[in-house]
């Protein structure tokens, strides 16, 4: 089976790349712009991933692990091995990527029908799937980093798909650059670790951590640096700014990358490196995650753009996962990653469906002013788009943490972990506060979204008539993913909707951290288990509170949202304006940087070069002018030319006697002879 695993993984990795290459080179010339190439490639990937998944079930071995490496570069002592790691986490992740990617491919058939760069779009999807699988399969930091950046590029390309729009182009650039900030941290982390360990492979690194070759502050610092990469990719505070802007990309892309898979890569990385994170680093991780969860949820409360709500919700949920890793329950984080991928992708598809239909309606009216994504232009879509409504509602229930849905299980596990962590470390009481606060807000803003979109009266009645349910290619993924948001798929072979216990917990078992002195996985699990019931009760009540508040405000309208907004005053404004992060970055980072760049360039070119470097030239030419003057007027004109001039003058006067008459010459000869004789005689 080992060979099969490697073959399958290789196929899963490279099939999308093949699709990418075909699409980029000949896609445009193929029938239907070659979308079938990409789709068949991704479906094959899905089949292979499912086969691996099925095999995992057959083996049912929590310690299953296959590694294969090959020597990529060899300088004698400096060697780089690239390779695969296939274990249960990998397989689950591969399946998630393949599944969501397949859904996206199919969903896009209609969503991007007639787009100018249709084949390009599919090509980039292929590139993304390839790189994402690369991250998932990596068994070392170098491959991880390589695919990490490639994911960033495919994200750049897809966000910038509609590059004619200035905002899309800006968003793409922002996404890439913000990610790069995190990646620099990641890279520094890699360097620290390589310097200490001398290898990039996880296995070697963990062994060194366990043996104490690397430890203490260095390890903490290395861990935080690596985590910086995750912060960028998973859009954690303060690098969260790019994700909401990334919604400029086509909605299926948002579903695939900016909700389900790519942004989860950060969580995946943190899960992978969990064994080397020291307790200090973990605390840092936990605080970043917790704060992001609360902070993003607070922004989501007031957003009116349907995709922006979902974007901030994603940031918040990713914060949850990071928080979970930080508090030690990293399997819960991974579990939430899995469930979140399903329901969040579904929510994005749902929003895509709504936007698609709004777009068509607006198009029919030749209205190019109205924003098809603004929830204030929607309302009452329940009757018109029943499938979309239903599947979105299911996912909303899941994300809000309502029992019988997947989100409840994973969220509960996280909150339980957080609570138990605070119980044992009371000084970190803020972490559960972050967690539960975010849970409340999540329930509120998600239902706010549902109510504003699907319930009530239409805000734009003239459009309402033209709103239709989306075609099958779009509703299909909605139904599928909606179904997958039900608890049963995660608790099999058990049927207890209130317990996470199931195949997942059997197959993905937390392992001890390799950092000497960290709490053992067993202890963490024990603690979390104790906190399970109180956490569940607490989370149910906060979720209920949030839902009821949303209902009162946006469904019954018995509480005026506007009045509340007025009452909360500056807080509301802060939330609506995303805490002015973009503006402040703009003011305190970009602009000073650009100014500095401009100044340096000016200095370099206009001052340093012109005055200093050219100054040498000027000095030299001044010097040479002086010496030239002396040389010309003194030596040359005076001395050298003087001789010449004298000779010339003499010649000119002597020329007179050069008459050309022979007889004159003879006369001179004679005169000369006489002269000589006379002189001789005297």
């Amino acid at each position, binding site marked *: 089976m080992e060979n099969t695993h490697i073959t399958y993984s290789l196929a899963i990795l490279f099939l999308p790349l093949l699709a990418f290459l075909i699409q980029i080179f000949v896609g445009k010339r193929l029938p239907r712009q070659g979308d079938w190439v990409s789709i068949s490639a991704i479906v094959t990937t899905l089949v292979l991933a499912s086969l691996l998944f099925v095999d995992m079930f057959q083996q049912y071995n929590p310690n299953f692990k296959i590694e294969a490496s090959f020597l990529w570069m060899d300088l004698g002592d400096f060697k780089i091995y690239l390779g695969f790691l296939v274990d249960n986490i990998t397989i689950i992740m591969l399946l998630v990527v393949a599944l969501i990617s397949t859904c996206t491919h199919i969903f896009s058939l209609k969503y991007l029908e007639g787009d100018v760069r249709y084949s390009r779009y599919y090509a980039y999807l292929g590139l993304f799937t390839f790189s994402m699988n690369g991250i998932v399969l990596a068994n070392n930091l170098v491959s991880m980093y390589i695919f990490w950046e490639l994911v960033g590029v495919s994200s750049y390309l897809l966000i910038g798909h509609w590059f004619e729009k200035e905002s899309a182009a800006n968003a793409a650039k922002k996404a890439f650059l913000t990610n790069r900030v995190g990646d620099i941290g990641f890279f520094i982390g890699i360097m620290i670790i390589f310097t200490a360990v001398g290898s990039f492979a996880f296995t070697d690194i963990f062994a060194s951590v366990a043996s104490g070759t690397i430890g203490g502050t260095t390890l903490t610092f290395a861990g935080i640096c690596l985590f910086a990469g995750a912060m960028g990719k998973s859009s954690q505070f303060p690098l969260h700014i790019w994700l909401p802007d990334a919604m400029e990309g086509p909605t299926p892309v948002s579903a695939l990358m900016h909700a389900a898979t790519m942004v989860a890569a950060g969580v995946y990385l943190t899960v992978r490196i969990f064994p080397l994170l020291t307790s200090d680093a973990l605390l840092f991780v936990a605080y970043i995650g917790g704060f992001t969860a609360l902070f993003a949820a607070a922004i989501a409360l007031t957003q009116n753009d349907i995709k922006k709500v979902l974007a901030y919700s994603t940031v918040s949920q990713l914060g949850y996962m990071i928080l979970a890793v930080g508090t030690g329950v990293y399997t819960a984080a991974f579990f939430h990653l899995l469930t979140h991928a399903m329901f969040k992708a579904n929510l994005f598809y749902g929003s895509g469906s709504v936007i698609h239909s709004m777009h068509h309606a607006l198009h029919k009216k030749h209205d190019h002013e109205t924003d098809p994504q603004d929830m204030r232009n929607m309302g009452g879509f329940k009757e018109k788009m029943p499938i979309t409504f239903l599947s979105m509602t299911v996912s909303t229930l899941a994300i809000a943490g309502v029992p019988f849905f997947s989100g409840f299980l994973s969220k509960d596990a996280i909150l339980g972990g957080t609570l138990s962590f605070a119980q044992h470390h009371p000084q970190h009481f803020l972490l559960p506060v972050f967690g539960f606060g975010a849970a409340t807000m999540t329930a509120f803003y998600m239902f706010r979204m549902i109510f504003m979109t699907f319930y009530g009266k239409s805000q734009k009645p003239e459009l309402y008539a033209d709103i239709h349910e989306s075609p099958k290619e779009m509703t299909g993924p909605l139904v599928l993913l909606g179904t997958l948001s039900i608890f049963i798929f995660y608790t099999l072979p058990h049927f207890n909707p209130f317990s996470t216990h199931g195949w997942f917990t059997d197959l993905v078992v937390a392992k001890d951290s390799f950092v000497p002195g960290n709490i053992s996985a067993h202890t963490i699990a024990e603690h979390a288990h104790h906190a399970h019931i109180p956490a569940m009760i607490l989370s149910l009540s906060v979720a209920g509170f949030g839902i009821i508040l949303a209902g009162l405000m946006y469904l019954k309208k018995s509480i005026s949202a506007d009045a509340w907004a007025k009452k909360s005053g500056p807080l509301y404004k802060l939330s609506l304006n995303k805490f002015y992060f973009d503006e402040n970055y703009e003011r305190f980072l970009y602009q000073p940087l650009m100014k500095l760049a401009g100044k340096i360039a000016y200095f370099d070119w206009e001052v340093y070069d012109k005055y200093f470097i050219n100054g040498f030239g000027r000095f030299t030419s001044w010097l040479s002018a002086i010496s030239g003057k002396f040389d010309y007027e003194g030596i040359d004109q005076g001395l050298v030319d003087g001789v010449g001039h004298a000779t010339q003058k003499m010649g000119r006067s002597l020329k007179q006697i050069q008459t050309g008459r022979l*007889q*004159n010459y003879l006369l001179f000869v004679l*005169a000369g*002879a*006489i002269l000589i004789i*006379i002189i001789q005689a005297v």
Partner: protein
Amino acid sequence: MSEFAFWMVAALTIISAGLVVFSGQLIYSAVALLFTLLGVAGLYVFLWADFMAGVQVMVYIGGILVLIVFGIMLTHKIVSVKISQTNVQRRIGGFAAGLFLVILISAMGSASWFMEVTPEPVETVRTIGILLMTKYLLPFEAASLLLLGALIGAAMLSRKEN
């Protein structure tokens, strides 16, 4: 008698030479030159150089002078009888030449010349012939080459183009 003859010859030579130089007509000059050359031949006789006198008459008068006369006739229209010719820098030239003459004569007069009086030889031709074929053979041959070269050169120069 011979003393008188000598002075007569000398006078003839010098006077005709003056004519050669001062005459305004070229053809007169040529005729005067004939007498000068004859005078010089006479002087050779007084100097016991009978062979030289013969050569002087034959070569100079029969060859060179005829050549000169031909030259005059070739370069002037013979019909215009008056083939006049003018002089330049007469004064300064005359002064220089005169000065030179004074210098020469005063030098010659003041010098004490080596003189060895030998009996007059019976004839010189034989000795000259022997000398030419023995001691002066090389100059002799060179002179013949020179003459040949001058002959060809002169023919070459005066040949009409094309």
